[in-house]
C-alpha cells in the first residue's frame, strides 16, 4: 500500500486519473481508516487530500451557499453562518461522533462514505444540496439525491474528487430541523434521523416542505410523497397523520443490533410530527 499526499487539487486529480479504482481518497480518516484497519478495504493507494486547504471553507453568496469538501463537522456545528442559514446541517454535524471525530471528519467524507445512517445527508437533502465533482476530464454537479446511489455507493467516478457542496440556505419564513434517535446522549449511529425544512406563507399554510430521512433505507432519501401530502395544509393533525403514514410506507429499514425494523418504522411518524412542529415554530418566529 502506498500513501500519497498530493500538494494541490490539480495534483490530486492527476493522481486519481492515473490510479483510478486502485486509489482510496482519504480526508479525516474517521470512516476510511476504520475500514482500512479492520481489513474491510485493501486499497493499493491512500490518497490523502486533508492538506488541501483550497477545499476547506464556507462561503455564502446571496442564494448560493458553498461548503468545501474538507470542511470539518466541528466547523459546521459551530460556524455562525451555518448555524444561522443551515441550522439543521449544524445540528446534524454536532451529532457525528465526539469532538475528536468532528475535528477531522469532513462533510465530503460523510457524503462519500454513503452510509445509510449518514447524519449530514438528511439535512443536506432538504437543502437541495448539489455535489460538486471534478476530474482531470471535467467538472460536474450532481444532486445529492442522485449522488447517493446505494449503501456505501455513490455516483463518483474513480478519477473524480468531490470538491464541495452547494446548498440552498434557509430564507423567509423557513424552519430547519434535524432530529436523531439514539439511545445515548452522544456517539450514536442514528437509529432514525429525520430532517425537515418547512416554509410557511403569511397565513401559516405550508408553502413548501422538504423531508429527508436516514437509517430507514439503504440510502438517505427525500420523502417526496409525504411532502406532497403536507403542501398547502396548516399542519392539521390529520394531515400530519397522513404524511406520517405515507412516510412509513416509503421506508424499508433493516433490523440489526441497534434496533429492529419495526421500531424504526414506528418512531418515524412521531419524529415527523415532532420535527414539523419544531420547524413550524421556527418558521413563525
Amino acid at each position: 500500500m502506498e500513501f500519497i499526499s498530493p500538494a494541490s487539487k490539480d495534483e490530486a486529480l492527476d493522481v486519481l486519473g492515473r490510479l483510478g479504482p486502485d486509489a482510496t481518497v482519504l480526508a479525516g480518516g474517521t470512516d476510511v481508516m476504520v475500514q482500512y484497519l479492520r481489513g474491510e478495504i485493501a486499497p493499493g493507494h491512500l490518497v490523502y487530500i486533508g492538506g488541501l486547504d483550497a477545499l476547506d471553507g464556507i462561503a455564502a453568496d446571496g442564494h448560493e451557499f458553498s461548503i468545501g469538501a474538507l470542511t470539518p463537522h466541528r466547523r459546521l456545528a459551530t460556524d455562525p453562518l451555518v448555524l444561522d442559514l443551515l441550522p439543521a446541517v449544524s445540528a446534524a454535524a454536532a451529532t457525528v461522533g465526539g469532538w475528536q471525530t468532528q475535528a477531522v471528519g469532513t462533510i465530503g467524507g460523510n457524503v462519500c462514505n454513503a452510509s445509510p445512517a449518514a447524519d449530514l445527508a438528511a439535512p443536506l437533502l432538504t437543502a437541495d444540496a448539489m455535489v460538486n465533482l471534478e476530474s482531470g476530464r471535467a467538472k460536474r454537479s450532481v444532486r445529492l439525491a442522485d449522488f447517493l446511489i446505494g449503501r456505501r455507493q455513490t455516483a463518483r467516478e474513480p478519477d473524480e474528487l468531490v470538491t464541495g457542496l452547494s446548498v440552498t440556505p434557509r430564507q423567509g419564513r423557513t424552519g430547519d430541523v434535524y432530529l436523531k434517535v439514539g439511545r445515548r446522549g452522544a456517539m450514536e449511529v442514528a437509529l432514525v434521523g429525520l430532517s425537515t425544512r418547512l416554509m410557511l406563507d403569511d397565513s401559516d399554510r405550508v408553502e413548501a416542505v422538504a423531508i429527508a430521512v436516514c437509517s430507514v433505507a439503504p440510502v438517505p432519501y427525500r420523502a417526496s410523497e409525504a411532502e406532497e401530502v403536507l403542501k398547502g395544509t396548516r399542519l392539521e393533525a390529520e394531515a400530519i397523520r397522513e404524511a406520517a403514514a405515507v412516510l412509513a410506507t416509503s421506508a424499508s429499514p433493516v433490523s440489526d443490533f441497534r434496533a429492529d425494523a419495526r421500531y424504526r418504522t414506528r418512531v418515524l411518524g412521531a419524529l415527523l410530527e415532532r420535527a414539523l412542529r419544531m420547524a413550524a415554530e421556527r418558521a413563525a418566529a
Partner: protein
Amino acid sequence: MNASIGAAIPRGDARPKVRGTARYAVDVELAGMGHARLLRSPVAAGRIVRLDLEAARRAPGVRAVAAASDMPSRLHGLVLRDQPAFASEVVRYEGEPIAAVVADTLAEAETAVGLIELEIEEWEPVVDLDYAISEQARLVHPDWESYQMLIEGGFPRGGNVVAELAADPDGVDAAFASAYRVVEDAFGADRQYQAYLEPKGALASYEDGRYTIHVSHQFPFAIRDRLAQVLDVGLGRIRVIGHHIGGGFGAKLDLGLEPYVAVLARLSGRPVKLVNHRTEDLITCPSRENALIRIRTAVSQKGEFLARELHCLLDSGAYAIDAPFLVSLPLLLANGAYRVGPTRVSARAVYTNTAPTGAFRGVSGTYLNFAVERHVDHIANELGLDRNELRRLNLLDDGDRLPNGQTLDDARSLHEAFDMLDDISTTKEVGSGGWRGVGTAATVWLTNPLPGSAILKLNEDGTLGVITAATENGSGAVAMGLRQIAAAQVDVLPDQVIISMPDTDSAPYDAGSQGSRTTHIVGRALVEAGEELRRQILSKAAQILEAAPEDLELSNGTVRVVGAPSSAIPLATVALKATADGASITATGSYATASPRYDPTCASGFLFPTFPTPTYHVHRAEVEVDPLLGTVTVLRYVVVQEVGKAINPQGVAGQIQGGVAQGLGYALWEGLQIGSDGRYRQRTFEAYRLPLAVDVPRVEIVLLENGHDEGPFGARGVAEPPVVPVAAAIANAVADAIGAPINRIPITPADILDAIETVNRHATA
C-alpha cells in the same frame, strides 16, 4: 482518630497517571521480546477436522507456534477441570483459542496466524438456556462425568447443567395454599461486558525453569496458582509481576492470556507479549452472565411476604469457571433486603456454546436484585399498597436472618437508610406528572472475606514501606485506603508511605481486588502489622532515649517522651539505629474474615454460603421517558450506603458514582445479545454502548458510618455493591413512568414502546 482517616487525600498513584507515565501491561516491553497473536475459533461450535501449523511455522519472523500438543493434556479449571488451554478436537465458543504464534513483529505474527490451515465441521450451537437443559439438546461436554471437581465432596451437576443449587424448606406449599394472594413474575437479563479500557494483555519470559509473567491483573496469586495448574508445574516455578491495571471489574481475576505467553516464551526461549484487540477482548471476556428468573410470592392482605419460590437459569457459557459458586447467589439474594417466609430456590448454571461467563462487579446480584425489587413493586400494585410502605413493612432488621440462616446484627442500617432517603428525595412519588417515574431498590451485600497480608517496614529515612500483593485496580483501595490506613496506624504522613507493586516472589499472599475486600481485609492486616511495627519502634526508641517504651509516644513521624517535646527524635533515627543493630524494623500482618454462622443443610450445592461483613444499600432513581421514542433520561439518582467508615470520602464517592454508572449502562444501554449462531451481535464499542458523560447524572450520596468492629478503623467493603441495585431502581422508575411492567434488562426503547402500547390497548379495550 488520626487525620489520615476520613480525609479526601489525593491518591498516591495519581501523578504518574495524569502524566501518562504510569505503566500498564500494554506499555511494558521486555528486551528482545516477540509479539504474539492467537488463532481463535471463528465459529461457536464444531469439530476441528484439520489444523496444519506448518506454513505458519515457516513464515518470516516466526519464533514459535503453539497448540494443544504443546500443553499438558489435563483440563484446567477454577472449581471444575473442564477447560483446555487450546481447543484441539472440538470448539465450544467463538473466539476459543486454537493456536498461538510469536514472531519478531506483530505484523509477522498476524500474517503467520493467517497462514494456519484450519478446517472446522460446524455444528448447530447450543444457545438457548431452556433448550440447553432439555432432553434433546446436544451436550456441550459429552465427557462431563469424567471432569474432576476441585471442591471437597463435589457438587450436584450433570449434562449441560454445570452446577445446581436447591433449597426446599418446609412450609412453602402450605403458605402458598393459604395465601391472600400469590404474585408471580418472570424476568430476563442480557450479558454485560466489563469493558475495562485496557484490553487484556500479558508478557512472559522463561529462564531456568521459571516463568516470569507481567500482567495488569486483579489477583496475581491466582495467576500463579492457575498457571501452575495449566502448565502442570509447581507454584514456585511461576513469578507474577503486577503493573498498573487499566480497569478490571472482575474480568481480570482468573486466567486470561497468561498460558499463551508462557508456553510461547518457553518454546521460543525469548520474552513474549500478547494483547487482545478490542473485539476479541469483548467476544471472549467472561462477561456477567445472562439469566432467566421466575419468582412467585405468597402474600398476606397486609403485604407480608409469607413464602417465596425463585428459579434461576444462568448461562455459564462453554466452561464453568466460577459458575458453581454463582449458583449460590439466587438463594442468598432470593429475598433481597426483606423478611420472607420459607423460600424455595433452584438455580442451575448451564453450559452453552458461548464465551464462558464470569465475575463482574456485583456478579449475579444485579439481575437478582432487579427481579426481586421489580417483584416487590408488582406486589404493591396488586395489593394497592404504597411501594415504599410495603418495603418498610418487610424490611430486614437486627436479628433477622438471610435465607442461609445467617443472622444479621446490624440490619437496622437499612431502616436508617430509608429514613435518610425519604428526607432527601423530596420528589413526590405518585402523580409526578408527564412521563416521569420514581423507583427504589435496596440490597444487602457482603465484603469478600478471603485472606490477605502485608509487610510493613520502616525505611532508614523514616518512610514507611508496604509490601503487598494487594492490587490497585483503580478503586483507590490501595492508593487511598491502604496508604491512609498505614499512615494512620504508624502515625506518619500519607506521602511518607511507599507501597510496592505486586510481585508474587516478594509479597505475601493476597486474594486479589474482588468483592470490596482490599481496604477491609488488607487494611485490617496493616492495622495488625502496624501495631507490631509501633511496638518495635517504641522499643528501639526507648533504647535511644533511655526511657521506658510505655513512657514514649509516636506521632507525626517522631518519637518523644510524653511531656518532653524536646526529646523528640525522628523515625529515621530509630530506623537507622535498628538496622545498624541488626534488627531492622519490619512486621507482617495477615487477616481473613471468619465465616459467619449459617445453616449448611439449608441447600444442596451451596458452595458460597454466607455474606460476611454485610453492607446495606438503598437506591432511588427518577427518570423521564420519551413516550414516542421509548428513550429514557435519568433525572436524579440517590444512594444511601452503609460503609462502616469512609477512609477517604472522595474515593468512596468515586466508587459509588462509578458503580451507579455501570448499573445505568446495564439497565439502559449495554447488553450483549447472542445470535442463534452463538455469536455476539455487539462486537465493538460502537455497538456496545457504554454510558457517556452526557448520560450519567451526578449521584447524590449519603454515607452511613456505623463502624464495623472487625474492620480497619471501622471500614466495611465499599466499591462492589453500588452497581447492584441500579437496574432495579431504574426499571422500577421506568415502569412507574409508563404504568406498565418492565421485566427485561437492558430496557430497550422498543420494549418501552411495546409496554406503553399494551397499557393503551388495555385502557381502550
